[in-house]
């Protein structure tokens, strides 16, 4: 967990991290109060706010995850890191958890929204709590994908583009336009499994307030799978 501590401390040592937090909060605010049509709906909940989280993460997580491994590989510090008596898995996990905790912090800072709706009306706090959990899990999914793709390249920009594209696929897989398009010709089980792969689908389920073990498990498996992939890729590519 030394890697976790170093990485987390690293976030606060760089202005980029603060810029990230500020952008995160501004976008979260804009999405909620403007685009989310909070006032028009005249109902005190955070549906609008959470609906935009997949898109928020789509834009911001690749920027956070791109440097995880790409930068270590480019600067050669990976040789220093991987010759310490730390396992590859431990290093992958430490970096991931630090990035996740950092995103969690950004998310935690949006509780002001929660207070506001409680002040304005009587929302279902259970649903909101579930949504926060879902959002956090989804952020973990994005980050895990980003971690694996960041290990693939030495170039942060490539890592960003790769992660953005992959994340977009994960989000779009559940988008009605996409599922409709393939349901025309593909068998039902195929459409269902594509849908099932989507972050959007599982996230929506959780934000309805029902924390189904299957949805939680889905995100945890995505995280586990991509972290395992990260470790394999790091081991393969570290010395290139």
């Amino acid at each position, binding site marked *: 967990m030394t890697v976790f501590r170093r990485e987390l401390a*690293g976030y606060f040592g760089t202005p980029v991290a603060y810029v990230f937090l500020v952008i995160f909060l501004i976008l979260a605010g804009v999405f909620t109060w403007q685009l989310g049509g909070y006032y028009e709906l005249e109902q005190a909940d955070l549906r609008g706010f959470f609906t935009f989280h997949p898109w928020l993460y789509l834009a911001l997580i690749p920027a956070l995850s791109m440097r995880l491994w790409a930068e270590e590989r480019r600067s050669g*510090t990976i*040789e*220093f890191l*991987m*010759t*310490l*008596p730390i396992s590859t898995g431990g290093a992958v996990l430490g970096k991931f958890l630090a990035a996740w905790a950092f995103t969690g912090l950004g998310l935690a800072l949006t509780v002001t929204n929660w207070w506001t709706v409680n002040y304005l009306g009587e929302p279902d706090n259970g649903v909101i709590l579930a949504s926060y959990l879902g959002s956090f899990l989804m952020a973990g999914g994005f980050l895990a994908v980003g971690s694996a793709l960041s290990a693939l390249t030495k170039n942060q920009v490539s890592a960003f583009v790769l992660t953005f594209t992959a994340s977009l696929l994960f989000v779009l897989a559940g988008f009605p336009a996409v599922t409709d398009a393939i349901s025309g010709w593909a068998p039902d089980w195929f459409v269902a499994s594509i849908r099932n792969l989507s972050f959007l689908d599982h996230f929506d389920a959780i934000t309805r307030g029902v924390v189904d073990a299957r949805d939680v498990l889905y995100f945890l498996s995505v995280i586990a799978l991509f972290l395992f992939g990260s470790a394999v890729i790091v081991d393969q590519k570290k*010395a290139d």
Partner: protein
Amino acid sequence: MIEIKNLTKRFGHITAVDDLSFRVQPGEVLGFLGPNGAGKSTTMKMVTGFLAPTSGAISVCGHDVLTDAAGAQAAIGYLPEGAPLYPDMNPRSMMRFVGRARGMAPSRLTARIDEVCRLVHLEAVMDQRIETLSKGFKRRVGLALAILNDPEVLILDEPTDGLDPNQKHEVRELIRTMSAGKVIVLSTHILEEVEAVCTRAMIVAEGSIKFDGTPAELRGSSRFAGAIEIAVASDHAEVAQRDLAELGSVSHIGEVVEAEGETRFVVFPATDAPLLEDVQRVAAGASWSLVRLAVDRGRMDDVFRTVTTGQSAQGA
């Protein structure tokens, strides 16, 4: 102890390390020499578990690097080539990170940070961001990290590269004082460094061992070892060379250089001949007089060139 058996590493069609086998015992300081691209760094990367060998076996203090990398890495202090460091950290936080990763107790870590910082003279920059440090200071930080927990094995890839002459001297001193009971392998392009710190010199070229012996043997295997360099006034050069060539103890004369009215040449000995005595006797009774005379102990750069290129240096 480090034991390397039939180690080979190929990158595509390039064979960087070719069937290398050797051992290094505690107390030994092995100087790893070789031209650029000889495979020194590649070998070190494999010993430290960073790079997987194509074939062969490596064991460090009883830990097989291929199956128990962490065990081997716990015993090794490693300074990678170019001393890569996190630019946004400072030497102190970097040392704390390494200390924790190596499982050092907090009190011991604090004590060692102070000690190591004094040993490599980092006092003034301990809290300065690494990206703002000069090249030599970065190298010193890398060295500090390698020796932080006083490991049994030290692998140092060009430890004195980029250091000023004073620091070079101090680092060599440091390595010498630390060497008791440790296995130390360092690579360098400075041949004198090998004599200054190493108990054993190894020259690799094209991935295989071309020389393995003590630094004295390395120097001694030079064709210049035991040869005598003589300088006379240029007017007498021909006579002097003719007189000396008649000696039975002289095999041949070469490396003739003329400069500023003075001619220098090297008299090579026939095997086991008392060359110095003979030369002095001849010179004492000759019509010409010596400007200078020096017995050559052997030339490291000459051996290096001979061994790594198969041809000898001209006019060295």
